[in-house]
């Protein structure tokens, strides 16, 4: 597999897994509008995953279809970030993940939209428009909860603290990507860190929240070393395809 394709799969897995998590809120949102918002975002993520899986299926030259990539791999074959597979928790946890990840994804796609790889460049230009809406939504809610009641403030602060040590791996360059980032195909994630920290700091300040202290960080998602939660998520995600083989989404 080419390095561009391995990268596309990583991005696809991020989208698929977070999309699946957000879809779990469908019918369970705290208010109707938020139920709809999260389902809409889930749709964006799964749509983006589809574009990526389809591209890999078309270019990789093996017999795998987009459905095979999405539904017929085992947990260690998925290369998504660990933060995205964590259970939704309360609404504050879901929102803090949405906000922090959207800040990262927006920066990443903005850089990827300058890629020398035509597909990745077109994908990024398309997707970043959607992700800006996600970022705005996440940010609005962090402000609302942080600068809200005692209860909402405490919950969102706890949520940001809890997810913080899952954000480190977003900025660790992966060996697969190092070569292709040197040749302008993808961003060097290390270079996004400072801007990300500044943006997050600004939002947390405005939300009257404390910036967590960065210490030890979880990592391994990109290498397929996952938390125990991914297997459970996949059992639900893959059930239909396993029970009715060869069905198409």
């Amino acid at each position: 597999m080419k390095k561009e394709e391995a990268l596309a799969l990583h991005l696809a897995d991020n989208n698929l897994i977070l999309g699946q998590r957000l879809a779990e809120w469908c019918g369970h949102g705290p208010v109707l509008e938020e139920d709809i918002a999260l389902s809409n975002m889930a749709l964006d993520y799964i749509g983006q995953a589809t574009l990526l899986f389809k591209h890999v299926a078309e270019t990789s030259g093996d017999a795998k279809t987009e459905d095979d990539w999405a539904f017929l791999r085992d947990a260690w074959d998925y290369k998504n970030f660990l933060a995205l597979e964590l259970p939704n928790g309360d609404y504050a946890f879901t929102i803090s993940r949405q906000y922090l990840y959207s800040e990262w994804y927006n920066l990443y796609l903005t850089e990827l939209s300058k890629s020398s790889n035509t597909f990745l460049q077109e994908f990024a230009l398309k997707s970043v428009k959607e992700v800006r809406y996600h970022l705005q939504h996440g940010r609005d809610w962090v402000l609302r909860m942080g600068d809200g009641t005692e209860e909402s403030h405490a919950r969102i602060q706890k949520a940001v603290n809890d997810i913080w040590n899952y954000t480190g791996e977003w900025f660790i360059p992966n060996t697969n990507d190092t070569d292709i980032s040197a040749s302008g195909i993808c961003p060097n994630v290390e270079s996004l860190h400072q801007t990300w920290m500044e943006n997050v700091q600004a939002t947390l300040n405005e939300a009257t929240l404390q910036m967590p202290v960065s210490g030890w960080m979880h990592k391994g998602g990109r290498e397929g070393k996952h938390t125990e939660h991914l297997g459970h998520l996949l059992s639900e995600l893959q059930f239909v395809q396993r029970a009715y083989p060869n069905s198409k989404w």
Partner: protein
Amino acid sequence: MNYTIQEIWEFLKEVEDPEIPVLNVVEMGIVRDVQLEDNKVIVFITPTYSGCPAMHAIEQDVREMLVEMHIEDFDVKTILSPAWTTDWMTEEARVKLEEYGIAPPQKGSADKNLLMGKLRDVRCPRCKSSQTSMVSQFGSTACKSLYKCEDCKEPFDYFKCI
């Protein structure tokens, strides 16, 4: 093949957007190009949002229209670039949207407005008041936000800029 490219464009104007049936897929800007290769018709379409569930239906409807016109040799291809934008929506389409009850997207530099966190006035499609407020950035479909009119109290969809 007995048709010109221009005639094929006209046929495609008969294909409705499944979510917004007052608009056709040409005035929505979903059909990007029609080409003739030898005698084969190739229709290029682009998704509005990556996850728009209507795209499958649209592709199917385009295929059916071509079959109905007795065009046998054709292909429908999805392209991502240039990325779809609400700026492609024709003036006529905007008028039809408003008459249908959906506030049309504001024109121009959608991205910039969003980045600046700035929203311009959205006019109520029912009473035309500009005293409106956003209820939720995300509405009944990926491409719409939910608004309400402070004057006539009517909730309505706003086709958001992308």
